[in-house]
């Protein structure tokens, strides 16, 4: 076994421990991540088809299984269940293992759960394309798909709790709270919503409220906490600067937990609901300013003085972009929830613009940043090409900005026109058509970025480009590395038996 050079001030024990922890999560995290990137590509394809059909409705026309009313929900469900959720699971498993300083438990089971989840998405997508979708947004997959998501969600919760209970460290890092909470909320949300919907437990308009209680909370209590937790870890970790104000972060967590839960009914403003349900949604949405501002202060102030690192760190670029978009999307969302704003933008392209600024500009960009940090550390490999990374970054960032600004602008005027009965409805359609085309163009940019990313991921996973010179890696050969890891494990085992 070749000797391991030490970095400055390096304690061998800590470095070994970090390596063993990362190595323990290698297979499950790679599986969840690789699956998510596959679905990212599929979701981009479904997105492009949907987008082009909007401005050229005869595109792939008359093919029933590709009709807009099926391919559009397929896009949404792929990016939510396939891309976002699987990326979130991979990220939270790696992060919680690191923060709890424990090896990832049950790696075989968690890897199996990734495949179960994949089957669920495949079956669900085929069902919707075949016409068995429910037309309930975010819950289009038929009821028989539910176990494919509920069981892995509970397994991930169990692993998370196990790690949390066995951690030795007395100090909980703020990210751990968000990650634990997210894994508690997800199964409750999903199982409750599926039960209420498919067993007819809620009648009439209550179905709509349940739908959007689920839909909005799936964003705010599942993917958002995972991304916020990730940024709370990555920004300090990459820059070497501790989080700006730790006690603010605790306030941010609990206010998010309390207020985000109630914001969902803003999807139904002006609808046939009792006024109090909408008011409660508006209040919850406005109160979200508190956690969003605390997170913004923490993330952005931590970056003070180190903005030059954006030039040299891929992870930081994506993560900081995402963190800024979190502030932007949330401020926009809180204002959008107000009745006066909704009067104009409800039912328009503005909603779509906002949704993408949030789920793509904020969540997905942070997940990209996380993957750029995590993949080298679990594969013991290096990214093959800085250029591919840059193509990914610029394609995604410019794409989502053009997308968001374009559709929000279009949606605003579309809404104003729709509220003016002297303007024929078809004129609102004619008005948005060029913006729909622009959306396809920005979407193409994002798709190219995703292809670049997928190529990078393929290469790093397939050991296509094997260079070990990354910051947390040793300068040694791969066989010697595997030998070293095995030897360390034997040593630990012997120590345990000796006790």
């Amino acid at each position: 076994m070749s000797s391991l050079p030490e970095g400055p001030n390096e304690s061998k024990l800590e470095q070994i421990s970090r390596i063993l922890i990362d190595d323990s999560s290698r297979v499950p995290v790679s599986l969840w991540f690789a699956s998510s990137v596959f679905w990212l590509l599929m979701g981009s394809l479904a997105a492009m088809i949907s987008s082009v059909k909007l401005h050229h409705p005869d595109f792939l026309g008359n093919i029933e299984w590709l009709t807009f009313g099926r391919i559009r929900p397929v896009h949404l469900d792929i990016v939510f269940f396939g891309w976002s959720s699987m990326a979130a699971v991979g990220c939270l498993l790696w992060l919680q293992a690191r923060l709890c300083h424990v090896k990832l438990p049950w790696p075989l089971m968690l890897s199996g759960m990734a495949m179960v989840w994949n089957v669920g998405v495949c079956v669900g997508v085929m069902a919707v394309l075949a016409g068995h979708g429910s037309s309930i947004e975010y819950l289009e997959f038929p009821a028989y798909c539910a176990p494919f998501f509920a069981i892995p969600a509970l397994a991930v919760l169990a692993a998370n709790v196990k790690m949390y209970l066995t951690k030795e460290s007395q100090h909980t890092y703020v990210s751990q709270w968000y990650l634990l909470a997210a894994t508690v909320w997800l199964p409750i949300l999903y199982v409750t919503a599926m039960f209420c919907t498919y067993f007819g437990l809620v009648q009439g308009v209550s179905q709509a409220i349940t739908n959007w209680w689920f839909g909005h909370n799936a964003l705010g209590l599942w993917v958002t906490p995972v991304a916020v937790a990730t940024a709370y870890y990555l920004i300090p970790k990459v820059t070497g600067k501790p989080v700006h104000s730790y006690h603010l972060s605790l306030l941010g967590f609990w206010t998010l937990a309390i207020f985000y839960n109630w914001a969902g009914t803003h999807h139904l403003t002006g609808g046939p609901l009792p006024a109090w349900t909408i008011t409660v949604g508006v209040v919850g949405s406005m109160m979200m300013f508190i956690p969003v501002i605390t997170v913004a202060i923490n993330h952005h102030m931590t970056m003070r003085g180190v903005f030059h690192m954006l030039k040299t760190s891929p992870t930081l670029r994506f993560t900081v972009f995402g963190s800024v978009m979190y502030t932007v999307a949330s401020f926009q969302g809180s204002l959008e929830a107000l009745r006066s704003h909704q009067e104009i933008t409800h039912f328009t392209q503005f909603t779509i613009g906002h949704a993408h600024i949030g789920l793509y500009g904020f969540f997905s960009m942070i997940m990209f940043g996380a993957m750029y940090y995590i993949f080298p550390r679990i594969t013991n490999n290096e990214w093959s090409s800085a250029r591919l990374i840059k193509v990914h970054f610029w394609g995604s960032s410019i794409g989502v900005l053009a997308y968001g600004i374009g559709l929000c602008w279009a949606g605003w005027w579309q809404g104003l026109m729709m509220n003016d009965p002297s303007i024929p409805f078809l004129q609102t359609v004619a008005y948005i058509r060029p913006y729909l085309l622009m959306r396809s163009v920005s979407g193409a940019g994002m798709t190219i970025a995703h292809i670049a990313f997928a190529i990078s991921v393929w290469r790093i996973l397939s050991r296509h480009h094997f260079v070990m010179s990354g910051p947390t890696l040793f300068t040694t050969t791969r066989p010697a590395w595997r030998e070293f890891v095995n030897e360390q494990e034997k040593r630990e085992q012997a120590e345990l038996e000796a006790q």
Partner: protein
Amino acid sequence: MNRTPFIIFGVFLTIAFSLSGLVLIPNWQFQEHQPVINPRDGSQYPAPYFGMALQGRDVYVDQGCLYCHTQQVRPKGYGGDIRRNWGNRRTVARDYMYEYPILLGTMRTGPDLANIGARQPSRDWHYLHLYNPQITSAGSIMPRFQYLFRTIKAGELAPSGAIALPPAFQSEGTHIVPTARGEQLVEYLRAQNRTFPLPEAKQ
């Protein structure tokens, strides 16, 4: 001391709270809804779908019409729904008491359909529109639903039930006839009528 159980309990409380408030309480509130009997003809409003309209509802769902169309009329003075003639009153919770699944929708890429049956009662209009939206609505971005129709070769006479396409869209020697699904969908659309005056909808 490990704070895990405390955090999990707190987190669980936050969601139990919103679940009770948003899902359970309104659902309980709506239990008291009863349909109204129209004194003039004894008919019930609202009434559950049945027959072809019920099957048509399934076609509406499997085609995903909801992703471009809504089925809700906003109150007078909020937006322009009533002034646009999309309804004579706002829609209220009782209008949807028999809807399962409820298809309120969230996008108006196309117009609202809550009262399309009252606005466009003509079957022929719907067949033309579904076959090729450009016929009735030039410039529309709605896709064609030609697979909801069958093309049959023309004999001497046009069979009954054939759609009379305008000359520009009619091919030589063929006739267009709706399939069963096409007929069902149109019956569902014609059943969309929420104009009955409900007392709670008065403004």
